């Protein structure tokens, strides 16, 4: 029982991070139809900038804020310099561009920072909390609470504000949105900036637990994508469910089946989902009209 609870907690903790990465994917995909493979690099930037700013003597909350700002600026640059000029390119060309961006950002991080692994101190100490025989790290609560806060904020913005309505309108029909006065380019830039912020927050929250280095982005992006796919691409609620589910699958798979193939689970899930439901579990089926 305690073992089960332990796996549940660690699964939910990493799952929350996957959920945030998946949210970033869906936000950008929703607004621009671009699958942004550089999404994992924002997580990396969040962790790395915080680590280095903190090491340079900046207080932790300020370092974290700085990391989010850096990530947002890079997200906006990515949109303005690489995505916007490639307007009208095919889905595959855009994927290759964002993969190029992710390699570039990784290369830049390797130059600006270094190739080592880095750790942040836990936000509220390392004293473990005991619950029904399971051990909870306080940082896990930070991750879960932070993720919940991000999800609620995003929900509020999307449902209750004009910006949210503009995003929804852009996602539904770009031309119609433009006709009713939505500045589509601004909405897309906001989506890139927003997803960068979400990614960076995920990176800051998880670094005390999993460490960070210049190349953690790729695997996170792939797992976030698996989560988004599991929930149905472009569906924010699906992204959160998909992320948590993937985290749990990984945790239980590693605990009860094999830990060496823990990272493979995300890809087996991707392939399995696509084989069974090519549009994702919650995604809509579309019919191509000729």
């Amino acid at each position, binding site marked *: 029982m305690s073992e089960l609870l332990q796996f549940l907690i660690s699964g939910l903790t990493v799952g929350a991070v996957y959920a945030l990465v998946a949210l970033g994917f869906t936000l950008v995909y929703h607004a621009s139809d671009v699958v942004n493979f550089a999404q994992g690099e924002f997580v990396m930037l969040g962790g790395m900038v915080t680590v280095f700013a903190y090491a340079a003597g900046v207080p932790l909350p300020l370092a974290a804020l700085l990391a989010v700002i850096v990530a947002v600026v890079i997200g906006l640059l990515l949109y303005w310099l*690489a995505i916007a000029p490639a307007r009208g390119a095919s889905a595959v*060309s855009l*994927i290759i561009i964002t993969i*190029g961006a*992710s390699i570039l950002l990784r290369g830049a991080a390797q130059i600006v920072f270094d190739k080592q692994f880095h750790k942040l101190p836990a936000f509220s100490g390392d004293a473990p909390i005991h619950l029904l025989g399971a051990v909870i790290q306080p940082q896990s609560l930070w991750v879960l609470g932070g993720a919940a806060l991000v999800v609620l904020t995003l929900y509020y913005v999307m449902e209750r504000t004009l910006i949210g309505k503009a995003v929804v309108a852009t996602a539904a029909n770009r031309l119609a949105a433009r006709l009713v006065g939505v500045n589509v380019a601004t909405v897309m830039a906001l989506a890139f900036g927003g997803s960068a912020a979400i990614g960076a927050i995920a990176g800051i929250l998880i670094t005390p637990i999993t460490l960070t280095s210049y190349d953690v982005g790729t695997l996170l992006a*792939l797992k976030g994508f698996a989560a988004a*796919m599991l929930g149905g691409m472009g569906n924010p609620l699906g992204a959160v469910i998909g992320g948590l589910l993937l985290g749990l699958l990984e945790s239980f798979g590693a605990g009860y089946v094999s830990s060496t193939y823990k990272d493979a689970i995300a*890809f087996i899930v991707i392939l399995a989902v696509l084989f069974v439901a090519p549009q994702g579990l919650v995604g809509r089926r579309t019919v191509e009209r000729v």
Partner: protein
Amino acid sequence: MLNVFGRRSVILIALAVVMAVLPLLFPSSYYFRVASLVWVSALAAIGLNILMGKAGQVSLGHAGFFGIGAYAVAIGPAHLGLNALLAVLVGALLSALLAFLVGRPILRLKGHYLAIATLGLGVLVAMVITTESGWTGGPDGMPVPKLSLFGWRISGSNTWYWITAGLLLIGTWFALNLDDTPTGRAFRALHDSEIAARTAGVHVERFKLQAFVIAAVYASIAGSALAMMNGFVNPDQAGFLHSVELVTMVVLGGLGSIVGSIVGAAVLVVLPQLLTVFQDYEHFLLGLIIIVSMIFMRDGMVPMLAKLTMRARR
């Protein structure tokens, strides 16, 4: 002249002449090695181009097949006592079989979904290679025995230059000929519009699968050649970054242009060699090249140059 030989023969003869003349310009065996790397990469890229440029299907996990070919010539002789050439064949068969088995469900997908599924497949192959260290040496890789034919040990950059050049010529010849076969025409039809192709009676699923299997065999043979040439394999050759490099070669050179794939491979192999001074900047520059070329040369280098010369002639 052009009409006597036909476009295909002109390309093949030009390629053979370049291959024969290049060594005269090489001051050291290092250049033979770099050129062999270009031929090997071009072979894999041409295979991928048959899938991407001709049949219009993307694969972001193509290095997986490259890795299977590479590890076949390492594991076959070391653990199973296979002859090296037989191991190449086994690798190619394994790649073809894997492509055949997963191709059908995967190729039902389109756009992002196909990209991510092939990516997942490639990453899984790389993970198996990294994890099964008893067979593969794990992340450190393993040595590959030198190829020997009829008691004659094949080694040295010069020898491998000619072997890889020969392989690339055969690969180019096959790819060029494919264009004018019913299969090649079917590929083109489903590239333009799957639905139109289906209406015209093209068995879409079968031809997609064929293109996938052909591309996998090309990559596998290229992988085997590289592994034997290097005398060493490591999991990077099956990795995601290598898959991206292969796709970039195809797209940079020009989708659907066989010559383009050779040019794309040459650029992506030679550039990092020139940039070794900036070793730390390698990834940064690779990313930059990918982005800039995708934005400014959407058709790829060779089709773009062809268009420019056509315009200049007018």
